[in-house]
């Protein structure tokens, strides 16, 4: 005899039932639903009417080049195109090969490129740039298709990223190459924002992990230095650190040593962020049961191997949400470099507003800057959710 297996009761409901259950379950609930709906409609109509009828978007389209790359010389812009091209192809291929998390980032990159292409289509900077942006977005997807075929070894892609970071830096700055130098003083707009954020994130993460391990080290000197560093930096606002990096640092360096201003800002942001990464990671380290370390010890793993293979993979996984939150803040905090005279996206917006024919266009400029920041931050947070799911945070 076969046992009768009961199917679970159906949990899906039709839309009308769902509405009644969730939005109109009682008189009060219905009133609130209607009020909120009315408010949302009113906001949407007001904003929509402003955006379509009143807004002077020409302030944005006319200055699109400034928004994107600041004062970077127009005749050298091919170097940025080259860098972007490299980035698009690599992002696409990585997304196709590794999938999941990186796919979110790659799709976001192509979305931003398409967005910019749309903005440029109506801007006087010319159709060539629109086509260029669209070509880049297409390259991301082409790269993804190539990656899906799975013929490119993962190691090669990682190596390509490392080489590209150097190549992109050399291309943009022109240092140590036959192409002319472009001083970082003229880097600006979205270009500078992204450079500051990417460098800050990439460098502060390993530094923060080392500081967190240092704070738990059995060597008193290492522990003391790490703790002192973390507490000192966390006790000071970022603005102060940027000022220190910009004004004080040159006093302490010998006269012939000069670090340019953008590098100093990158250094300040990295050092600041590392202290917060360290505290996040420390939280993750504390959550690892001692049994894990005992098991690794008993197997004969050395201390550094235990950290590398057992402790860190578990600890870092559990602090992904906190760290991504931190990196989103870091991205937004790059706007503070305006204080030391660097024109990142928001800073360039301010200076555009100072132009005579842009007077009064605050809303348009800030809305544009805001949308770009939102897309970047939202992409990061979505990528983090994907990463958590992929690594099975909370399930294993």
């Amino acid at each position, binding site marked *: 005899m076969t046992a009768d297996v009961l199917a679970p009761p159906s949990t899906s409901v039709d839309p009308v039932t769902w509405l009644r259950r969730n939005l109109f379950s009682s008189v009060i609930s219905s009133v609130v639903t209607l009020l909120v709906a009315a408010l949302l409609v009113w906001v949407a109509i007001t904003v929509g009417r402003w955006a379509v009828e009143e807004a002077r978007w020409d302030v944005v389209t006319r200055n699109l080049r400034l928004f994107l790359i600041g004062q970077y010389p127009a005749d050298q812009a091919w170097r940025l195109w080259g860098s972007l091209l490299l980035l698009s192809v690599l992002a696409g291929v990585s997304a196709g090969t590794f999938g999941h998390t990186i796919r979110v980032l790659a799709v976001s990159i192509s979305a931003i490129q398409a967005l910019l292409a749309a903005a440029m289509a109506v801007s006087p900077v010319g159709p060539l740039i629109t086509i260029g942006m669209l070509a880049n977005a297409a390259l991301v997807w082409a790269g993804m298709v190539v990656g899906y075929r799975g013929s490119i070894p993962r190691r090669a892609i990682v190596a390509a990223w490392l080489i590209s970071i150097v190549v992109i830096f050399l291309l943009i700055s022109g240092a140590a190459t036959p192409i002319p130098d472009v001083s970082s003083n003229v880097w600006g707009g979205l270009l500078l924002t992204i450079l500051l954020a990417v460098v800050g994130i990439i460098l502060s993460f390993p530094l923060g992990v080392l500081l967190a391990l240092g704070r738990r080290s059995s060597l008193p000197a290492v522990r003391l230095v790490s703790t002192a560093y973390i507490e000192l930096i966390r006790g000071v606002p970022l603005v102060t650190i940027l000022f220190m990096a910009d004004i004080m640092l040159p006093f302490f360096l010998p006269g012939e040593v000069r670090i340019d201003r953008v590098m100093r800002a990158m250094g300040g942001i990295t050092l600041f962020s590392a202290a917060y990464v360290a505290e996040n990671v420390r939280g993750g380290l504390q959550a690892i049961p001692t049994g894990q370390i005992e098991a690794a010890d008993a*197997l*004969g793993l050395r201390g550094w191997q235990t950290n590398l293979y057992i402790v860190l993979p*578990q600890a870092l996984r559990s602090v992904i949400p906190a760290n991504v939150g931190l990196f989103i803040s870091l991205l937004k905090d790059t706007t503070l470099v305006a204080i030391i005279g660097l024109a990142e996206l928001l800073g360039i917006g301010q200076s555009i507003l100072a132009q005579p024919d842009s007077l009064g266009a605050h809303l348009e400029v800030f809305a544009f800057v805001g949308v770009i920041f939102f897309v970047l931050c939202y992409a990061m947070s979505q990528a983090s959710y994907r990463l958590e799911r992929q690594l099975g945070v909370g399930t294993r």
Partner: protein
Amino acid sequence: MTESAGPTDIIVARDVHKWFGQLHVLRGIDLSVAAGEVVVIFGASGSGKSTFIRTINRLEEHQRGQIIVDGIELTNDVRNIAAIRSEIGMVFQSFNLFPHLTVLQNISLAPMRVRKWSRSRAETVGMQLLERVGIPEQALKFPGQLSGGQQQRVAIARALAMQPKIMLFDEPTSALDPEMISEVLDVMKGLAGETGMTMLVVTHEMGFARAVANRMVFFDEGQIVEIGPPRQIFEDPQHQRTKRFLSQILH
């Protein structure tokens, strides 16, 4: 079975003392274990039996006395500790599998990183060990997807992958649901019977002790009260405390 230290002894402990703060948990332990011997250690909780086997691979440091494992004395010398640990496998009460690694990765990690084996060799040996503990089909799962008994069998395979000369078991079945205890004990019996592994087992599984142990050691208040073959311990215990403890757990 020799009671005093002899040339075949793979573990020699002489007058081992250990304090946790003010608490004197090991009060002069003398024990020698011959190669191939299976020793079951039992006693009330807090009697120091777990602490003692944890001093043998230096998860706990002893503060007085001498412990010599396979001819190497345990001192603060890091190289000695590493050398001894790679010869001793340990199985814990709470399994302590690495949750972020698959079953096979759990087993092959240490051989690859400590013994410097190639991945293919480590995984081949890992699969053989999984066959031996009876769960080769679980190789690619994560520990969290396994039952307690299966996890403990993986933990045994993980320890065996380092090809140790000695295996320490710290209450290996205490955290298991009753129906899973025998599957773990069967693996341990096989280990003792087929391979002649030297085993120190802290357990209250008296059936296992009777079937497999060469000697049984009764711990009480940080001291060894009585040592003897299972037959003698069960049928003619010499000490009042041993009698009382056995009557408590055998009822």
